């Protein structure tokens, strides 16, 4: 069979893959994007970012209605039609995926539906519905992503034991739901199910939930979740699970103490694994690390000079926006630019209630690395905007280099923190100082003011809080 010749083949159509394909096409390359699923968009669109945010919006509506009676607004208990809710979610995904398909068409990016397999360092075989296709490429970009890990001990073949993928289908609202893993996926989905009426127990093996964030920022999330959920148990391990009729029997270990409990469903959110199996990587010079992630250099190049890898499959933080940035680096390197993925600020957002977002250096990281920093904090109890919607459980925080007063890190917890963190990213990337932030006028009354007021408090003159005077040495 005659091979199809292309300059770039992109394997995977998630936020890494389509970003790479579109950018390469915009730079005048002939691109084929191979995706095994019918709907483009990858995990982010189909089983991750987007559907979870749709449900979290629904959850917020329910919670806000419930919590409005003290304002004199009384709602009946909501009636949730799961079938309709799923259809609503699907309609969002269809719209977005349709958008990607349309954008591919307009750029003349050929989308080939099928499973890709590397025959060698310049040939990809694709198993399509219409038979095998061979693509001869100059460069390949692997962007096949990751999937939720399911440790074999928990893999009972019972649909009541779910990963995030199944949990996002919301087949039913379990009365008792156990969430294994207090990371961002577990906490976000726990929030969704709790608002729908499930009684949630979160177990986390580590000492705290959301361990990547500074403890003072994670605290408001834990506090609120502590009220919404039945229980959050840290330093707790799930030893065994077994089917028990229409329930799951779970054996837990809290230190030396052993417990046996029954749950209607279990959500396993203990991490993600790369989708590297059956790609034919062994026919190329692509190398993997001990966890199976593809090893890449700062140019996103794999051990095979013709092949690049971006996104989850290349390891690091598993976030869509990191994948898209890596995609840009890979394409720029392929098109001859001197691009590297280096010193790039990747923000993290946890869409719990309240939201938690941070970027750059965290206070804990600074401590760990022995970097001397100063920290400025602005509590949202001093924000008029936060008060106006009764959510003062927020905190804005700046991590500052004491010598240059440069902003090295920003952390925000509070309603809408995810929308606010972008300014932090810009500040850090631009090398802004706390003074720059303090002197930029922020609109009133908005939550964005907490950033400028936080910077002002660093100098001891925030309008809406009182802090000790700082003796600054102005140059």
């Amino acid at each position, binding site marked *: 069979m005659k091979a199809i010749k292309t300059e770039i083949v992109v394997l995977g159509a998630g936020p890494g893959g389509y970003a790479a394909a579109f950018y390469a096409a915009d730079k005048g390359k002939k691109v084929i994007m191979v995706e095994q699923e019918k709907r483009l968009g990858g995990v982010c669109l189909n089983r991750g970012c987007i559907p979870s945010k749709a449900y979290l919006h629904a959850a917020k509506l329910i919670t806000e209605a419930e919590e409005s009676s003290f304002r004199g607004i009384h709602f009946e208990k909501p009636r949730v039609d799961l079938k309709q809710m799923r259809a609503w979610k699907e309609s969002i995904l269809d719209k977005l995926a349709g958008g990607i398909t349309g954008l591919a068409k307009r750029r003349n990016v050929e989308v080939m539906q099928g499973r890709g397999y590397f025959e060698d360092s310049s040939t990809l075989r694709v198993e399509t519905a219409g038979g095998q296709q061979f693509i001869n490429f100059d460069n390949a970009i692997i962007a096949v992503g990751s999937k939720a890990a399911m440790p074999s001990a928990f893999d009972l073949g019972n649909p009541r034991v779910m990963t995030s993928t199944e949990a996002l289908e919301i087949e039913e609202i379990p009365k008792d739901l156990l969430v294994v893993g207090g990371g961002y996926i577990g906490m976000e989905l726990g929030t969704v199910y709790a608002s729908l009426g499930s009684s949630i127990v979160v177990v986390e093996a580590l000492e705290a939930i959301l361990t990547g964030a500074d403890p003072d920022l994670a605290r408001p999330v834990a506090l609120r979740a502590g009220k919404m959920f039945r229980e959050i148990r840290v330093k707790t391990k799930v030893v065994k699970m077994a089917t028990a009729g229409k329930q799951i029997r779970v054996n837990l270990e809290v230190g030396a103490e052993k417990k046996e409990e029954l749950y209607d469903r279990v959500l396993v959110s203990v991490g993600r694994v790369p989708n590297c199996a059956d790609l034919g990587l062994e026919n190329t010079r692509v190398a993997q690390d001990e966890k199976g992630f593809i090893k890449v250099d700062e140019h996103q190049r794999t051990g095979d000079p013709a092949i690049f890898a971006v996104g989850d499959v290349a390891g690091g933080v598993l976030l869509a926006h990191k994948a898209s940035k890596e995609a840009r680096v890979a394409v720029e390197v392929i098109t001859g630019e*001197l691009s*590297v993925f280096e010193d790039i600020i990747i923000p993290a957002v946890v869409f719990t209630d309240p939201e938690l977002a941070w970027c750059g250096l965290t206070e804990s990281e600074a401590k760990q690395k022995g970097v001397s920093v100063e920290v400025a904090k602005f509590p949202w109890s001093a924000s008029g905007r936060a008060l106006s919607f009764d959510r003062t459980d927020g905190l804005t925080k700046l991590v500052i280099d004491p010598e240059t007063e440069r902003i090295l890190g920003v952390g925000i917890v509070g309603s809408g923190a995810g929308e606010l963190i972008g300014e932090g990213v810009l500040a850090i990337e631009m090398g802004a100082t706390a003074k720059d932030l303090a002197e930029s006028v922020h609109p009133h009354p908005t939550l964005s003011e907490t950033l400028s007021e936080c910077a002002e408090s660093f100098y001891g003159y925030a309008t809406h809080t009182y802090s000790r005077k700082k003796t600054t040495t102005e140059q």
Partner: protein
Amino acid sequence: MDVRLPRLGEGADSGVIATVFVKEGDQVKKDQPVLEIESEKAVATIPAPAAGTVTKVMVKEGEEIKVGALILVLSENGAGAAALPPPPPRAIDASVGDDARVEPAIDVTPAPPGALLPLPGAAAGPSGFPIVHGAGAPPPASPSLRKIARELGIDLYRVRGSERGGRIVMADLRAYVQKIQRIALEGRPVPGAAPPPGAPLMSPPAAASIDFSQWGPVTKQKITTLRRSISRKMVESWTTVPHITQFDEVDVTDLLALRKKYAPKYEAKKAHLTLTSLAIHALVAALKKHPSFNASIDEAAGEIVLKNYFNIGIAVDTEAGLIVPVLRDADKKSVFQLSAELNGIAERTRARKVSLEEMQGGTFTISNQGGIGGAHFTPIVNTPEVAILGMGRSLLTPVVREGKVVQRVMMPLVLSYDHRVNDGANAARFVVDLVKEFESIKEADVRI
């Protein structure tokens, strides 16, 4: 934990490993020396940042390594944050000519790649291109500017930013590139941070190798790190500082008598009472009256920096060459303390055990050739200081005192100074006062 070569100080971006004290498998305590590195004018020891077991040694003796290079890998005992070194590694603001810029602790943050891959030829960190941004965070510049710098192959860690917090903007990058071009065209690095546009041309590029053996047998010696560093420093001083040397003589007859009387008492306490320690005493008194000789020039800021401290550098003749350790706070010390300290620091310098810190922060230097011989000479100012005092061998000389020719011991005294900061009249007044201070040293000053 990765242990990397910490910042060594201004202009010292690399060094040659003199000794490696540890091998793989060794247990080390926190602050235990793990290697000795010869850099600039001293052999400095690098301490372990934490207690632990050496799992890998990444360097060999004789190897030249750069700041930030991986030295060894340490697996910490009872790992965790508690075992990490105290915070110090800090961003460095290099906006003023502060020459006491030494990082006290090992920077455990890996130096970002690219930081140590500057333009070709600048690898050894010539004095015009110091690293001016700390290693904790990438250089403060916008993503678009960083991209341009990357495309140009410019190491932003060496580009001084003019905006708040040292932020680098396009104008800074442009100025830096222009400076590099100017230097490239002139063939040699321009010392100092920012020479004014149209600065006078430096001396011509190094001459091509000549085969001297065509005229007779030769012996070739490799130029040592120290020799290279002395050479760089001297050229820098000679080419930037307009030198003037003022000559004088001082009557040390009475001082020598005092010395003779007290030397044994000093010796008993392991201190040498020398003309150098007496000179420091006299010098500090004179400097207090003439602060412009205890100063530095900051052309970038358009300022003369008068120092309210008196750290006196002492030119020490070692086997390897000239090294100038610094005696700190000389104004706060008695002649005896000065003598005792001088003794120790000179010995350690000759043994090349003096630390980098001990060679930095000087405000004025003394070069005493009296012990060797010779009369007047013209020393070169030890930049960024602005003056240096030379002392020759004292000699029994017939002089006229109150109309009669008498025998006195006279010591040649020379002052070389930076004419940018001081004029001839100033220098004459300073030397006159200095001579007076010498001649008015009293027994009470020396007694112990």
